[in-house]
C-alpha cells in the first residue's frame, strides 16, 4: 500500500491493526516532501516541516504498545501558518511575524495534540489569509498538484497542496470568505468550512473575526468527520464557540437522498462569470440528486447579489482592526528609524506587510472612519443581517443548499496577482456562507475536459455539519 495515498481513517485502521507504525507513516510523508523539494516545480506547500515529527511518531508507537487508545494517536496532520502551536513559528506567511514563536497552543491544535495527533509542519498561505491563490505569501507561491502551472487557490493553498500532493493525509486551513472551499475545489479535495462557532478560534490569528473559521481538508469524507469529532465543542477561551457535541461525526453513515430537499439559489446560476463547463458539472450534480429522489428546487435570495460587497466591507474593517497589533513593539519585525513611535510603526508596517495586505488595511480603515466614509460599515452590517435572515429562511424549507464553489477552475499562477478585483471575484459564491455563518462543504464533483477539478458546495443550516457530511458520504459512495 502507498501510505501517501491513504486516508486518515485507513491509516488509523492500519495503526490499530499493527500493519503500520506511526514512524513509518510520518517518514513516508517526510520522504514525499523531501523528494518534491528537489523537483523542478516544487509544490511549496510546507513553509516548514517539523524536525520533531519523527520523534513524536516514535513516542506514539511506544504509547500505542502500552495500550494508549486515543482517537488520533500517531496520525499526522498539517497546519496552516496562522494557527498557533506552542514552540513553533507562526508567521501568517508574512515578513512582519518572522521570528515570532507562539508561546501557546491554539485550541484546535491543542485538541488534536491531546487526541494524539502529530503536527507534520506548517503550510503556506496568502499573507494574513488575504488572497485567493497563495501568491501573496512572503515564502513564494504554492503550486497546484493537479497542474503545477496553476494556483492551488488560497488563502489556504499550502494546506490544500500538501493533502492533494500526498504530503499529508489531512490538514487545517482557515476561511474568512472561502479560503478553504476554493482551494479544495481547485485541488479536487473535500474542504469544510464549519458553522461559525463549531471550532474555537482561540490561537488562530484573526483576519475578519466575525467571519473566520478553521476549516479542514481531506481526500475522503470520513476524515473530516473524524477530525471534527475531536476538535469541535465549547472552548472557555472563545466566547463565540458553541456548546455542542460533535462526537457522532466520528462515524458517518450516508444520508438518505430520497426526499432530501435541495435548494438552488438562482442568483448564482445566472452569474455571467460562471464557466460553462462548471455549469455543466453543476447540472450533473443536480441531476444526481434528482435521480435519487431528492426534491431539487430553485430559490431566489436577492440579497445575495450584495454579499460580496457586504463581505469586503466587514472583512476589511475587521482586518484593519485585527492587524493593528502588528506594530513592531513586542515581537516580530521591527524597523526603527529612531525618530519616534509613529515613524517606527510606519517603517515596520511598510516593510512587514505586502501590498495586498496594506491595500486592505487602508480600505478597512477608510470604511471604519465615519469622518471619511459616513456609515459604510453600518450599511455593510445591515446587509449582513439581511443575508443571515434570508438564508436562515431558506433552511426552514430545505435541508441543504447547493451551488458551485468557484465561478472558474484553478487559474494560472501570475494571471490575477496584479488584478486585485479579479482576485476578489474568485470568492463570489463562497462569501455569503461566512456572512450567514452556516457550514459549507466543497465536494469534488467532477473534472473539466482538461482534467481540472470542479467543486460543488453543499451548504447546511447552522450546526448542520452532520447533515452535509452524510450527504457527501452518499455522493462519495457512488463515485
Amino acid at each position, binding site marked *: 500500500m502507498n501510505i501517501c495515498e491513504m486516508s486518515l481513517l485507513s491509516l488509523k485502521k492500519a495503526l490499530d491493526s499493527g500493519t503500520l507504525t506511526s514512524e513509518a507513516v510520518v517518514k513516508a510523508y517526510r520522504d514525499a516532501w523531501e523528494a518534491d523539494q528537489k523537483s523542478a516545480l516544487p509544490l511549496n506547500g510546507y513553509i516548514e516541516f517539523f524536525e520533531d515529527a519523527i520523534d513524536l511518531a516514535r513516542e506514539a508507537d511506544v504509547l500505542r504498545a502500552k495500550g494508549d487508545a486515543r482517537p488520533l494517536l500517531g496520525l499526522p496532520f498539517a497546519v496552516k501558518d496562522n494557527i498557533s502551536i506552542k514552540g513553533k513559528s507562526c508567521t501568517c506567511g508574512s515578513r512582519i511575524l518572522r521570528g515570532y514563536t507562539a*508561546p501557546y497552543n491554539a485550541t484546535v491544535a491543542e485538541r488534536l495534540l491531546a487526541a494524539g495527533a502529530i503536527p507534520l509542519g506548517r503550510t503556506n498561505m496568502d499573507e494574513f489569509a488575504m488572497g485567493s491563490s497563495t501568491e501573496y505569501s512572503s515564502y513564494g507561491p504554492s503550486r497546484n498538484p493537479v497542474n503545477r502551472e496553476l494556483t492551488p487557490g488560497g488563502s489556504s493553498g499550502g494546506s490544500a497542496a500538501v493533502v492533494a500532493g500526498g504530503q499529508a493525509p489531512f490538514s487545517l486551513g482557515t476561511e474568512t470568505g472561502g479560503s478553504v472551499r476554493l482551494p479544495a475545489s481547485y485541488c479536487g479535495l473535500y474542504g469544510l468550512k464549519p458553522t461559525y462557532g463549531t471550532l474555537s478560534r482561540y490561537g488562530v490569528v484573526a483576519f475578519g473575526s*466575525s467571519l473566520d473559521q478553521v476549516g479542514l481538508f481531506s481526500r475522503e469524507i470520513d476524515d473530516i468527520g473524524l477530525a471534527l469529532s475531536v476538535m469541535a465543542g465549547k472552548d472557555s477561551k472563545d466566547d463565540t464557540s458553541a456548546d455542542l457535541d460533535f462526537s457522532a461525526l466520528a462515524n458517518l453513515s450516508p444520508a438518505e437522498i430520497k426526499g432530501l430537499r435541495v435548494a438552488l439559489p438562482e442568483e448564482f446560476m445566472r452569474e455571467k462569470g460562471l464557466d460553462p463547463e462548471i455549469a455543466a458539472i453543476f447540472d450533473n450534480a443536480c441531476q444526481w440528486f434528482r435521480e435519487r429522489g431528492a426534491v431539487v428546487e430553485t430559490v431566489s435570495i436577492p440579497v445575495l447579489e450584495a454579499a460580496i460587497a457586504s463581505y469586503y466591507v466587514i472583512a476589511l474593517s475587521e482586518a484593519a*482592526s485585527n492587524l*493593528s497589533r502588528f506594530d513592531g513593539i*513586542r515581537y516580530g519585525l521591527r524597523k526603527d528609524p529612531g525618530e519616534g513611535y509613529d515613524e517606527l510603526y510606519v517603517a515596520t508596517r511598510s516593510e512587514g506587510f505586502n501590498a495586498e495586505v496594506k491595500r486592505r488595511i487602508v480600505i478597512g480603515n477608510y470604511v471604519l472612519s465615519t469622518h471619511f466614509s459616513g456609515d459604510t460599515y453600518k450599511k455593510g452590517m445591515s446587509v449582513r443581517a439581511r443575508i443571515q435572515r434570508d438564508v436562515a429562511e431558506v433552511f426552514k424549507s430545505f435541508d441543504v443548499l447547493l451551488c458551485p464553489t468557484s465561478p472558474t477552475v484553478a487559474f494560472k499562477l501570475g494571471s490575477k496577482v496584479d488584478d486585485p478585483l479579479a482576485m476578489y471575484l474568485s470568492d463570489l459564491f463562497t462569501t455569503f456562507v461566512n456572512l450567514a455563518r452556516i457550514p459549507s462543504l466543497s465536494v469534488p464533483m467532477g473534472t473539466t475536459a482538461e482534467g481540472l477539478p470542479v467543486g460543488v458546495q453543499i451548504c447546511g443550516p447552522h450546526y448542520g455539519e452532520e447533515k452535509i457530511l452524510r450527504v457527501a458520504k452518499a455522493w462519495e459512495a457512488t463515485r
Partner: protein
Amino acid sequence: MNEKPIHTDGDLTYEIIIGCEIHCELLTKTKAFCSCENRYGGLPNTRVCPVCLGLPGAMPVVGREYVEFGAIAGFALGCEVSRFTKFDRKHYFYPDLVKGYQITQYDLPLCTNGQVLINLASQDETPRFKKVRIERIHLEEDVGKSLHIEGAHSYIDYNRSGVPLIEIVSKPDMSSPEEAALFMQTIRETLKYIGATDGNLEEGSMRCDANINLKVIENGKEWRTPISEIKNMNSFKAIRDACTYEVGRQLAEFRTDRQNFSQGFKVTMGWDDAKGETVVQRTKNSFIDYRFVVEPDIKPFTLSDSFIETARSKVGELPQPKRDRFRKEYGLSDFDVNTLTTERSLADWFEQAAKASRDPKKVANWVLAEVLAVLNERNISLDELKITPAHIASLVDTVVSGAISSKQAKDVFAEMLETGDMPEAIVKKHGMEQVSDTSLIEAIVAEVFAANPAALDDYRKGKTNVVGWLTGQVMKASKGKANPGTATALVQKRLAELK
C-alpha cells in the same frame, strides 16, 4: 440652586463649562478579559498571558465580576443599567496598547442617565448640594505602563494591561474648577464606599480628564471658546489648578483670536504640575478618529433579571443617606457624622458598636477620639485591630453603668487593645469594679476616721481642706475602687456629725 455663576473680566462676561471623564480601575480578582490576577505593582510583566498581551490569536472572554462591578457602580451613581450590551474596539497606536485598540463600549454603554449630588459646603457647614448629571458609564480595559529613561530605552510593563476600568462621563454641568474637583471627590468616595475601587490616586486607580471651555459674552454676542481636554489628572489639586489655568489661557486666547469652537475638534492637553501650566499634546485642528468597530470576539449579551437585582442589592447604603440617618438616629453632629462615614468600613464598625451599646453617642466619642487615634498612630486598618465593635460597646456600657470610672476605662481600653480581652474580663482580672455600695464605703470611712484623730482635730479647728485629704485616704484604703462621689459625700456627712 443650579444657577450658573457669571464671571467678569474687563469688558467680557463669561461662564465656565466643565465636563469630566473619570477612569476608575475596578477591584475584581481577575483582569477584564483573562484570568490573570488583577493587582497593583509587582515585578514588571509577571501577570500577563496571551490575552492581555494581545498576542496573535488571543481572544478576550468577559469576566462576570467585571460586568457586575460595572452594574453596581452604575446603580450607586444613579444610572439605569442596560440589559442588552456589547463591546466595541477603539483604535489608536501607542506602545503600551498591545492590540492597537482598546476594548470598550461605544454605542451601547452598560449604564446611562445617572446623577450625583456634590456638596458645595465645607465640612462643618450644613450641606449645600448641586446635581451633576452622568451621561454614561462604560466598561473599558486599561493599558500597560511606559517607563521612559532619558537618553536610553523605553520600557513597558504590561501588568496593568487588561485591568478592568469603568469610564464615567459627566454632562458639562460643572461651572468652576472647584466643582470639577468636588465631582471627582464625590465619585471617588461613592465608588470606594461600594468597594468597587480602592480609589488610590497616586497608583493611578482613578484618573480624571476634564473638558473645559468658556461661554463668553462680548457686546451682547455669545461665543464658545474651543474645548480643551486636559488628560489624566490624578489629584483634586491638579484638577483645580489645571482648570483654573485653562480658564485664564482660554480667556487670553479668546482676546487675540475670538475663535468659536467647532464640533468634533479639540485640543488635547496634559497638566504639568511642576510648571503649573497645561501642555498641548494634540492641536485642536486634529480630528481624533478612533474608527470604532463592533468587537467581534465577544458576543453581545443580555443580563438576566437576577444578575441585575443582585448588583442592585450589592450597592447598599450610600454615604449621603447614611449621614442623614446617623444624624437623626444617633443625634450626632455634622462633623462627627462626616468623619464616621468617610469609609464604609468605619461607618459599619461604628454602627455595630452603637447598636450593641446603650449609649451610641458615647460610642461615637470613643470611636472618633480613641479608636481613630490608634489607627492613625499605628497606621493600621480596622480589621488589624485586636478589638471589635463589641469591645467598645461593652466598654461604654461598663462606664455608663458606673461599674468603672472614665479614668479606669482608658486603662481598660489600652489593655484590651493589646490583649483583645473583653472589658469585663479585664475589670474582673484587676478587681477594678467601682464600689458604690454605701455601707461598704461607710465602713471604710469609719476606719479612716478612727485611724486619723489628728485630722479630725484639725477639722474641728476650722481646717476644711481635710475633706479632700480624708477622701483620698478612703480611696486609697479601697484601692481606688470606691465611687469618688459617694466617698466624698460620706466623708462630708460624717464630719458634719462631728460638730
